[in-house]
Structure formats: structure tokens, C-alpha cells
């Protein structure tokens, strides 16, 4: 934008200079040219006057010599002609007045001489001739000096024109030099700015690359190259999509026309998306991509490697949904998973069982051996739960020594009780924890869905109630929630 303004200003300044300076030069040149033409005309006029004045003299002398008055008419006509040219002379010429007077004198006395000859008064004619010769010489001398003056004036005007032309060429050269200087300075400025920008882009931690309307890479910064494992020359002028954006993370081919970068080139809209880029070695990594249009056709892509971010997400997820001690899902996650399973069971017309478990004798272990041993024991219990159950079943720790189990797709009460009894037996086996042999048990209450057609929270409550009954009837027993 700035460059555009600069160019516009430069062009306007040039136009102004050319208009003013060369306009002035042109006017002055025109003026001088007109003057030159006037001078040339005057020169022609004065020459014509000179020649015709000569004709006047010749006709008069011819008349005198041939004793014939018919040449007098020719002399008079020539004189008219001469005076016509005299009129045409620039009246500002200082000598014009004198010239007219001298011509009159010349004409006057030459006519007198001629008349005397025609009167046959030869002595007087010869006498008069001296005077007329003198007048004629005076006239012709004046004419020559006028002619010289005009020539001088002409030379002055010509040299002024030459000077003017020289000056305009010098000025033109100056204008060209100044223009070149200004342009080169602004170009250097632009280049410096561009290189600064390039350095800045290179220095950015984010990957940045530019694309043209064909999706080919126009530039790429160091960060991007480092992340992608390519060299600049491998990427530049190549299609970025084919280079490192060719597949979905699951291995399906990513069509060029579905690429958000391509879409941005089409609709000129800024997009923030998460994508997967592929390194030169074929490995992939998740990226957060911002694509934006540049100019009328091109685009720019800024991306960050979000692998670490993803991992952090996983950790945070774990904190939110899993029990820190046992690694089993916590109540929150259990509720989510249970609700999904219930919904699925409803659709598939399956039966599921929800069991509530409470350890027997855990409090005494804690009190006797300390919390550390208690924690170890809980981890061991969790492992035994998982080993006693199918993969599709879900075990979660609700807190303390309370657990819930969801058995997916059960076919009969017997099958449920068989599984849960196996859990009771597993827990009843002695645990060897840090040198101690510990003996605990578990009491389990359960309910069946959809017989007990209630929300998950109620199902857990019903199982808890049943567990409470089981505890009352003796440790290590199993009770179904009565309907």
C-alpha cells in the first residue's frame, strides 16, 4: 500500500515537473521560434528591399543613359515595391525610421540626377550624381548594417534555442537520475522490509508457508521445514497438499478438493482447523492450521505441532475420568459409559447387570498396616476385578472401598451370579502385599436391566441397597435387588 502511494506520488511529481518545466520550455521555445521566423522574414524583406532599391537605381540610370523616360515608370513601380517591403519591416527596429529617411533621400536625389540628364543638363547631372551616389551609398551601408544586426539577432536567438535545448536535456537527464535514485532507494527499502519480514517469519516458532492459486508452495519458513523434515527446495513450487497433507490420520486418502487450505483459496475465508500433516519420513503429527487469503489469489498457512497439546489433553482426561489410585474409571466416567451401554442395550434388546461392591475387612487392614498398604491392596483388588471380568465389562471405583461393575450383554441371572461369585472367590484369596499376607472379602449387591427399568443412578442405588442386604446376611455374600 505504502509502495503504491509512493509510486503514485513519484509519477505525479514527475508529471508535474514535466508539465511545468517542459511546458515552460515549450512556450519559450515556441516564442523563440516565432521570433526566429520573424527575423528570417525580416531578413528576406531587407534583402528584397535591398534588391529592389537597386532596381530603382538601375531603372533611373537606364532612363538617363538611354535618354528614355519610359524607364521612369519602372523606377516608380520598383520604388512602390521597395516601400512595400520597408512597411513590412519590424517598426521596432531602431533603424527603420532612418532607413525610410535614407531611402527617400536616395530616391529623391537619384531622380533629380536622372531628370537633369533627361533635361540634357549634363554638367549639373554629373554634379547631382555625386550627391545621389553618396545618398545611395549611405542607404546601402545602412541596409548592410541592418542586415548584419538581423543576422546577429538571428544568431542570438539560435544560440538561445540551442542553450534551451541543452538545458532541457540536462534537466531531463536530472529528472531521470532522480527518478532512478528514488526508485532504487524505495526498492532497497522494500527489499530490506521484505527480508526483515522473511527473517521474522523464519524466526517464528509456528510453521508458515505461502501458496499460490494452484496450491503450490511459494515460500516456507524454517520452523515449518523442521517440523516437516523437508528441505526448502523440495517443497517450493510443489503442491503442499500432495507433499504433506495427503492422508487422513486413519490412512484414508485426503482429497485435494476437501482440503481447507484449498477451500480458503477458493472462497477467501480465514479458517482455523485441526489437521494431520505427514513428515517426509511418512510419520504424521497433529497440527492446528490457520489458513488465510493473501492478495487476490494467494494464501498463507500458519500451523503448530499440537502433539504435546494432545498428550496433555490425554493426561487431563485421565485426571478427570479415572481413579488416580487404581487406574479404574471413576464415577463420572462410569456414569457416561454406563449410560452409553444402557442406551445400546435398549436398542439391541440386551440385558445388563449393575453390581455394587464393598470390601469386607478393608478398614482393619488400613488401621493395622497403614494407608500405604491399604492403597497397595486397593490396586491389587482392582487387578483381580479386571482379571475376573470380560473386556466388555466395566469396573469403576466410586471411592473408598466401594466399586461398581457393569456386566454387558448377560443372558441369565445364573450367568450374572456365576460371574459375580467368581469375583467374590477371587477377592477371598489371600493378597501378598509388601511382605504381608492379607485376607479380605467383598459383598456384592446387583440389579438387572431392563427388568429394573431405571436410570443408571437409580440402578446403582438399587445395587447398593442389595449390597447392604448382603452385608447383613454375612460377609462375602451376593444379593439381588428385590423387585
Amino acid at each position, binding site marked *: 500500500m505504502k509502495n503504491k502511494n509512493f509510486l503514485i506520488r513519484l509519477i505525479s511529481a514527475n508529471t508535474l515537473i514535466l508539465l511545468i518545466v517542459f511546458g515552460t520550455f515549450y512556450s519559450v521555445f515556441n516564442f523563440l521560434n516565432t521570433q526566429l521566423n520573424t527575423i528570417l522574414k525580416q531578413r528576406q524583406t531587407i534583402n528584397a528591399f535591398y534588391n529592389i532599391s537597386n532596381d530603382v537605381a538601375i531603372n*533611373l540610370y537606364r532612363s538617363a543613359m538611354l535618354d528614355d523616360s519610359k524607364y521612369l515608370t519602372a523606377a516608380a513601380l520598383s520604388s512602390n515595391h521597395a516601400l512595400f517591403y520597408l512597411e513590412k519591416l519590424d517598426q521596432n527596429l531602431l533603424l527603420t525610421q532612418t532607413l525610410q529617411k535614407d531611402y527617400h533621400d536616395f530616391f529623391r536625389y537619384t531622380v533629380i540626377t536622372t531628370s*537633369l540628364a533627361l533635361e540634357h543638363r549634363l554638367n549639373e547631372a554629373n554634379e547631382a550624381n555625386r550627391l545621389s551616389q553618396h545618398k545611395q551609398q549611405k542607404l546601402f551601408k545602412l541596409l548592410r548594417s541592418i542586415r548584419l544586426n538581423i543576422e546577429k539577432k538571428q544568431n542570438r536567438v539560435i544560440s538561445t534555442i540551442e542553450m534551451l535545448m541543452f538545458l532541457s536535456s540536462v534537466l531531463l537527464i536530472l529528472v531521470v537520475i532522480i527518478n532512478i535514485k528514488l526508485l532504487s532507494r524505495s526498492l532497497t527499502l522494500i527489499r530490506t522490509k521484505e527480508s526483515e519480514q522473511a527473517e521474522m517469519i523464519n524466526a517464528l516458532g509456528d510453521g508458515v508457508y505461502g501458496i499460490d492459486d494452484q496450491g503450490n508452495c511459494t515460500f516456507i519458513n524454517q520452523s515449518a521445514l523442521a517440523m516437516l523434515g523437508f528441505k526448502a527446495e523440495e517443497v517450493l513450487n510443489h503442491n503442499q497438499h500432495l507433499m504433506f497433507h495427503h492422508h487422513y490420520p486413519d490412512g484414508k486418502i485426503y482429497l485435494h478438493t476437501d482440503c481447507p487450505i484449498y477451500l480458503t483459496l477458493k472462497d477467501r475465508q480465514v479458517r482455523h482447523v485441526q489437521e494431520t500433516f505427514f513428515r517426509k519420513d511418512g510419520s504424521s503429527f497433529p497440527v492446528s492450521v490457520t489458513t488465510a487469503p493473501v492478495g487476490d489469489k494467494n494464501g498463507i498457512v500458519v500451523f503448530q505441532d499440537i502433539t504435546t497439546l494432545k498428550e496433555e489433553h490425554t493426561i487431563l482426561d485421565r485426571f478427570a475420568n479415572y481413579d488416580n489410585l487404581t487406574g479404574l474409571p471413576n464415577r463420572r466416567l462410569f456414569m457416561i459409559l454406563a449410560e452409553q451401554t444402557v442406551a445400546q442395550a435398549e436398542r439391541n434388546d440386551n440385558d445388563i447387570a449393575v453390581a455394587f461392591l464393598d470390601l469386607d475387612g478393608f478398614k482393619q487392614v488400613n488401621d493395622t498396616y497403614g494407608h500405604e498398604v491399604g492403597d497397595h491392596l486397593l490396586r491389587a483388588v482392582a487387578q483381580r476385578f479386571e482379571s475376573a471380568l470380560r473386556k466388555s465389562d466395566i469396573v469403576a471405583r466410586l471411592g473408598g472401598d466401594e466399586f461398581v461393575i457393569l456386566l454387558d450383554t448377560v443372558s441369565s441371572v445364573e450367568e450374572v451370579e456365576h460371574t459375580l461369585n467368581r469375583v467374590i472367590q477371587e477377592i477371598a484369596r489371600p493378597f501378598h502385599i509388601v511382605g504381608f499376607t492379607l485376607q479380605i472379602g467383598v459383598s456384592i449387591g446387583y440389579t438387572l436391566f431392563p427388568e429394573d427399568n431405571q436410570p443408571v443412578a437409580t440402578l446403582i442405588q438399587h445395587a447398593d441397597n442389595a449390597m447392604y442386604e448382603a452385608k447383613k446376611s454375612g460377609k462375602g455374600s451376593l444379593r439381588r435387588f428385590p423387585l
Partner: protein
Amino acid sequence: MKSLFLLIIPFLLPLMGNDSKPLKLVGATTLQPIIEMVRNDYHAKTQIDLFTEGGGSDKGIHYLAHHKTDIAMINRYPSEEEKKRYAHAVIGHDAVAIIVHKHNPVTSISKQQLIDIYRGNITTWDQLGGKKRSIIAISKKKDRGTLYLFENATGLFHPSRTGNSDPSKKIASAVWEAGANNDNIVWVGGLPDAISYISYGNAKSAIAKGMPIKIIPLDGYYPSEETISGHTYPIIGELTLLYDKHNTEAQKFMAYMLSDEGQKAVEKNQFSRVNP
């Protein structure tokens, strides 16, 4: 150019080498062309050569008095004394025409305007309805017959004329003075701002030869046969020849001039004949 004048001499040689004594006529250039016209015819008839010389009426009288010429040609009126002393005869009538350049837009002039021009009161043509340009007024030398006629008609006089001292009647010193009639004619023809007075006959001859001049009416009158013979034209004159009463050759020539042949020459030179 100067040396060319020496070439005039050969033209004069034939006049010298003749058997018969030539008859010499000196005076007004107004009459000169008439005499020159009859020269060949007169020579054929009488074997006598005619030799003319200009210089003006007064010069003719002066030469006659000093026996330097046989006949004096004058175009002014002879004085009473001259009439008494010499035999004289009028061979033609003339008028003094006012001439200007052919392209001068002025078409007429009054006697008063003419007087004002020559005494320097009117100096530019725009005062007469012409262009804003200086007038070149052309008069005659003091001894010229035409000047006498002009002086008589206008009351003006030549600046160096003795016996007349009214300064308001003096011809201005800026006025050009012509000797021969050719001076007047060529100056007016050659200078578009000039004005002159001149023998009507000479002016008409010059116009007939293509000289770019024109005659303008004076006080509404254009010189012509009627206005001259009827004396209505303001400045008229006579062409007179004077000679010694005993000069028989001069007498013979006079008779010739009054004959039909002589009068034809008068007429051919645009003057009015005396015996129609």
C-alpha cells in the same frame, strides 16, 4: 554605377556634328517633350536640328537674354517687359494638375487644403480622409514656370522669394523641391505618400505610360479641355515660346509650331492646342 553616367555622352554627339546650325530651345521642361516630338519631322523638313535643354522658364528667359539660346520655353505667363522685348507666341494651353499616387485613397482636394499642405498646416493624409501617414509635399524650384502658376493661384510663395514676406504664405521648408517635371512625376509615382502639382499635359503623358499616379480634382474641377478653355479650372497656364525678334530661324520654327503639325504634337503631349 557612377561610371555609367559617362555613357550619356555618346547620345549627345550626333547633335554636334551636323551641317546646319542647330536651333536651341531652353526653358520649361513642360514644353520639352513637345519640341522633342517634332524634332525628327522638323529636321526632315528643314535640315535643322533642334536642341532642347530644361532648367525652367526663368532659365530659358535668362539664356535668351544672354544669347545662349534661340528660343525660351516658358509655361508661366510672360511679364509685360518680356512681351515688349521679345517676339512671343502661345503654342498651347495647359493647366496645373494636382497629382497623388495611384493608390492614395484621397479622391479630391480643395484649394484651401492644398494651401494648408504646402505651408505645413496639414501634414498627414488622414486629415484629408486618407491613411494616417505623413504627406510628402512636392513643390518646384524657384525658377520654374509651374511654380509661378501655383503661386499665382494659391497666393503662396517660394521661401526664398524676395519681396514677399508674409510668413503665413510661405511654402514650408520641409516641402521637396523638384526641378524637371520628371522629378515631380517619378517622386509621386515612387512614393505613395507624395503629392505634387504639375503640368496637366505632362501628368497625362506619364499616366499614359503607366506611371502610378492620378490626377485629383481641385475645388471640384478636373482639368479638361472645357475646364481649361472655359477657365473654370483653378490653375491654368499657357505654353509660350519667346525669341529675339530678329531670329528668323526661331520665327520659322514658331510658324511650324503653330501649324497643324506643331499643334498635333501639342495635342499628342496632352496639351490643348491654340487653334482648334
